[in-house]
Each structure stands twice: as structure tokens, then as C-alpha cells.
């Protein structure tokens, strides 16, 4: 019987990188502070010592430069895993991602592939508007990019390994509040993980992969389907638990991958429940939730018993202080309220 080995997401990601770098000498890491510092969120701790500076490359602050270089390296035989520390910084290097990485395979008529992964920390923080955006929708919108966003340590490791083995560019979003990173210097509080038991889970010792493009049903239910990913998938679970006490049965789907979207799993659930709430932390307008809602509305209109609701971040920049974020970032209460409003529409069985 296997010994239970619960890992933080940061540690699980580190294992994924270490295993893939051992397995394939073409895998290299590149980004700011990935080497000596061990990564902005300590995900790459120890990898420089193990693999050396040829394979773990610390860069200057040159996102366009090193992300573009990763594209060139991927076209010519390497498999780079790029670290763009905060997803906000992706706005500094959109060209090499959305134009070059995403389109070179197509524009060249299939002569080149670009096997690279861009890892980036997403989600709200207490650092203000420039270090807390959720931009997954920007990348969902670019044909040629896959978009992955795990919510548990088991999935984080398995998905990162799959992403590295994929021969096309993958945007890999890690929620900055779910890392459970090793403390740098003083103690890091991990209070959020204390209230979300589903994040830090058993990670098997042996080799395993989680396939891209497959959602996970985290909780089965009959009355309503809630679709979400990363932190919001855990908030949805919290909402489901409190609603169970009210006799409401909630099915929670954790997408794990945004592109390619596992629409089949969502549709199968909606056929059963007839009601859908989509939760994403990004700003409401043009959100991930908006795209998913439109897909389901087109395909499942006849089985829906209520409108599809989106629960998203507010259309505002993120203010700094935690106490000011209450109406801006979704939480288990706003998700539960949305669910109740669907069930209280009256006249529906």
C-alpha cells in the first residue's frame, strides 16, 4: 500500500520539472530568478544545483527577448519551459507568444513546431492591480495556444508533465495563492490552504500524467452544475458543501484545461442538472466564463431550465487592500448566492 504523500502545488510542480528534465535533456528552464533564487514562487528551488546553468537559465528583465528566444530555441531542437513570474508580465511579451509561438506552425505550412511551455502565476493578490490579474481569456482567444490551469497538486504535476511533452505551445497558469511555496527567509502564512482541503493532495511517487483537455468532476450533484478552475474550483466546492446543508445538490466540474475545452463533460452534466453557473476570477467582460457560457448556450439550450449565470471578477482593476476586494473577487458566498437565485426562479422543477 502506497504511503500517502501530500505535496504542496509548488513542490509538485518542482517534481514535474525535475522528472521531465531527467527524462529529456532538451528540456531547459528559462526566466527571471528561476536559477539562483529558485523561482519567484520557489517552484524551481534546487534545479540549478542539480542541472547546471546551461539548463536552468536566469535572464535579465527582458520578457520579449527571452520569450522570443524560447520560441527560437523550441523551433531548433530544444523544449523550453519559460517562467513569466506574474501573469501580468505576459502583457510585456504578447508578440512572441500570440504571434510567433502560436502561429509559426501554421504560417510555415507545418514545417516547424514550437514545443514550449510558458508557466505564469495568475490570480488576485494583495499587491495591487499590476500583480494580480487573471488573463487566461486573452490566451484562450489565440488559435494555436493551449491553456492549462490546475487546481490541485496531483493535477499540477501531471498536467505540467503533459504540457512539457506536448509538441505545441502551452500556457500553464498556476494560481499564486495556491502554491504553498517553501518560505524564503521568514515564515510564509499558508492560511488559504488551511481552509481549502482539496488543494494539497496525495501525489504518487511513480510516473503518471494527467492528460490535457480533460475536466474533472469534483463533486456529483443533481440540481445545478458549477464549472470553474484553479482557486475558484475550490470556492465552488466550499459553496457546494454549504448548499448541501440546505438540501441543494451541486455538481462541481474543475476544468483543469481551458483550451482544448472539455465541452463533453460539461454538456453531460448540464443534461443531468439543467442549470449552469460558470465561475472565473477574471473580469466579467470577455471572461473565461463568458466563452464557456456561450458554448453551452448554443449546444444545450433545450435542456437548460434556467439562464446560464456567470460569477466573475468585477470589471475593475484590482485595488490593493484586502478589505477593498470583497465586491471584486468571487468567493464561496457569491457563488452560493448565484446558485440559489437559479433555484428560486419559481415554476421550475
Amino acid at each position, binding site marked *: 500500500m502506497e504511503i500517502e504523500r501530500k505535496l504542496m502545488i509548488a513542490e509538485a510542480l518542482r517534481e514535474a520539472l525535475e522528472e521531465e528534465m531527467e527524462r529529456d535533456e532538451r528540456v531547459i528552464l528559462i526566466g527571471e530568478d528561476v536559477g539562483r533564487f529558485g523561482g519567484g514562487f520557489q517552484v524551481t528551488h534546487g534545479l540549478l544545483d542539480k542541472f547546471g546553468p546551461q539548463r536552468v537559465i536566469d535572464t*535579465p528583465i527582458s520578457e520579449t527577448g527571452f520569450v*522570443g528566444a*524560447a520560441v527560437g530555441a523550441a523551433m*531548433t531542437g530544444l523544449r523550453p519551459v519559460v517562467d513569466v513570474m506574474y501573469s501580468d508580465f505576459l502583457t510585456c511579451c504578447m508578440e512572441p507568444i500570440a504571434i510567433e509561438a502560436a502561429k509559426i506552425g*501554421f504560417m*510555415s*505550412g507545418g514545417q*516547424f513546431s514550437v514545443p514550449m511551455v510558458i508557466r505564469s502565476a495568475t490570480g488576485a493578490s494583495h499587491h495591487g492591480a499590476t500583480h494580480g490579474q487573471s488573463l487566461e481569456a486573452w490566451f484562450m482567444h489565440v488559435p494555436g495556444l493551449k491553456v492549462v490551469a490546475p487546481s490541485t497538486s496531483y493535477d499540477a504535476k501531471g498536467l505540467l508533465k503533459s504540457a512539457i511533452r506536448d509538441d505545441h505551445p502551452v500556457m500553464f497558469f498556476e494560481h499564486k495563492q495556491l502554491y504553498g511555496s517553501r518560505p524564503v527567509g521568514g515564515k510564509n502564512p499558508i492560511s488559504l490552504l488551511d481552509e481549502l482541503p482539496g488543494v494539497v493532495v496525495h501525489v504518487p511517487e511513480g510516473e503518471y500524467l494527467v492528460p490535457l483537455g480533460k475536466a474533472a468532476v469534483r463533486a456529483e450533484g443533481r440540481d445545478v452544475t458549477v464549472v470553474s478552475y484553479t482557486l475558484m474550483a475550490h470556492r465552488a466546492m466550499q459553496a457546494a458543501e454549504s448548499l448541501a446543508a440546505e438540501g441543494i445538490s451541486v455538481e462541481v466540474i474543475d476544468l483543469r484545461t481551458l483550451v*482544448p475545452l472539455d465541452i463533453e463533460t460539461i454538456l453531460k452534466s448540464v443534461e443531468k442538472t439543467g442549470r449552469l453557473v460558470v465561475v472565473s476570477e477574471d473580469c466579467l467582460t470577455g471572461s473565461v466564463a463568458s466563452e464557456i457560457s456561450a458554448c453551452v448556450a448554443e449546444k444545450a439550450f433545450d435542456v437548460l431550465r434556467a439562464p446560464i449565470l456567470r460569477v466573475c471578477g468585477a470589471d475593475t482593476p484590482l485595488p490593493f487592500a484586502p478589505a477593498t476586494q470583497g465586491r471584486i473577487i468571487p468567493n464561496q458566498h457569491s457563488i452560493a448566492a448565484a446558485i440559489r437565485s437559479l433555484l428560486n426562479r419559481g415554476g421550475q422543477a
Partner: protein
Amino acid sequence: METLSWDKKDGLSKESMLSMYRRMVEIRFFEERLYDLFRPRGGRVALPGTMHQCNGQEAVAVGACEALAPDDYITSTHRGHGHCIARGVPLRAMMAELFARRTGICHGMGGSMHMADASRGVLGTFSIVGAGIPIAVGAGLSSKFRKSGQVTACFFGDGAANTGAFHEGLNLAAIWDLPVIFVCENNLYAVSTHINTAMRAATIAERSAAYGIPAYTLDGNDVFAVYREVSKAVVRARKGEGPTFLECLTYRHLGHARFDPATYRPKQEKEAWLQRDPILRFEQWAEQQGMLAAGELETVREQTHREIEDAVAYAESSPPADENDPFTYLSYCCSGK
């Protein structure tokens, strides 16, 4: 007309010199033929899109590519037909691409501004100005990592020298000692913007010094000078001594794109540069030097005219790419949605 700086010590064989002339003529005749194909006839233009013709800049492409080995890499730009031809990309495949045929080098998916040929190390003609620079740096990073001995020639213009990608890319190549040869084709204009209004520095080469990369400014219309400097840079790069920056002074005879009359350029300036036409200078040098007979050059021109017509006929008779084709090629950038 100024002569060329041919030096016996460069070790170029007669065959190589004739081959360089052939490549320059191929580029010139290809661009001229294409320019004509874009002429409106009965109110219609036969080809989609446009062309960014490189007439006048042939010596940079040919001199540089002559110094490369078959498995080296290049990155090019929207004004990339010359670099592709200099690298040996077949004229038929290039013409067919411009005609949006399935037999095009990118099967009609890329077009004039996005040509690529993996078999000849042409990573692409990158049309976001400056975008090819970080990609060339990445190819250098990969070559160095794999210890393959390959080098990368990165072509770009004076316009690119003001982009963030230029500055970041040069800096990375310098700090990582990468085998990249930065070949800047300074033709004085970025579309209509004269270089004097775009930077204070007197030369682009001096910017390279700021990154610790040795830099040289040279006559870009002297195919032997370009060959010589790129060859030296290639030797440095293969020995692991890092990048070199070559600012090649040149001029485009025509507008920025096909229908640009380039009225922003003074007539005397253009006429002075036409006197420095790299192909005419080569022909005059050949005549003075006596190494290549006039008849040999004439034969090259005749053969090239026939090759170009063959390429046009090939393109015209090739099956066009159709509306279903893009979905095939989508699978090359993501394995299905």
C-alpha cells in the same frame, strides 16, 4: 561607379563568384518579375497581398549567405525574398507561395511576408519588425546548447534598431556569448521615416557597442565586403567567441511596398544610390578584373530569366490553396481544439 573590394585572400573560387552573381541576379529578376505581376490590369491585380521588394539590397543577402554552411540558420523580415533566394529556397516554391498555391513553400498559408524553409534553416521571414531578433537569439542558444557548431544570421533593417526586441535580443546574445551574426540592412528608411528622425546615434553600429558586441559598418552594396565580414563573424561565432554586429549600408531602389511611390525620398539621393547598384558594380568589376567573361555573365542572366518564367508557369499551373486548407495547418500549431 565605385569598384568592389575583391581580395584574392578571401579565397573565393571563380565558381563561387559566379554563383554569387547568379544569386544576386535571381533576386533582382525575381523581384522585377513579381513587381510586374502586381501591375493592375483591367483594374485588377493578379496576386493577393503585396510585396516588399528588395531591389538594390541583393549584395547583403548574397554576400552573407555565401558565408554560411548549409545547416546554419537565418531569420529574415517582411523584405525577405532576397534572403530566401540567397539561401537557395527554390524559385518555384517561392513564386507558388506568392500565387497562394498548395505547392508554395508554406502551402499558401504564409504568403510573401511569412516565408520559411526548414530544410534550409530559414526559420522565417518575420513581419513584426524586430520579432526575428529574439528568435535568432533562441536559435543561437539552441545551437550552443547542442554544441552543433551552427551559427545564425539575423537580418533586419534600420527600423528594427529602435524596437525593444532589438535591444533585448542583442543584450541576451551578448551576455550568453551566442553564435549569432546580426546583419542590419540600413537602407535609411523605415517606410517613410528617415533614420535621422528616428535616432540620435550617428550609426546603428555604435549601439551594438553598448551591449558589448563588436560592430562594423560596411558598404552593403559590395558583395565581397559583406562576404568577408560575415565570414569573419562566422569564424568568431563557431569558435565560441560570441555575436558580431554588421551594419550594411544599402538602399532600396523602389518603395517600401509594391504601391508605395516613395515620394518621401529626394531624387538626388535615389540617383546617387542607383549609381551604387550592387549588380552593376559587380559587372563592372568583372569586366575590369577580367576573371569572369562578359559572356559568362550574360549566360547567367539568360538562364535566370528562363528560371523565373519557369517558376511563374509552375505557380500558375499549381492547384490553389482553398478554404479547407487552413484547418489542416491548424493542427501544426495545436493538436486540435
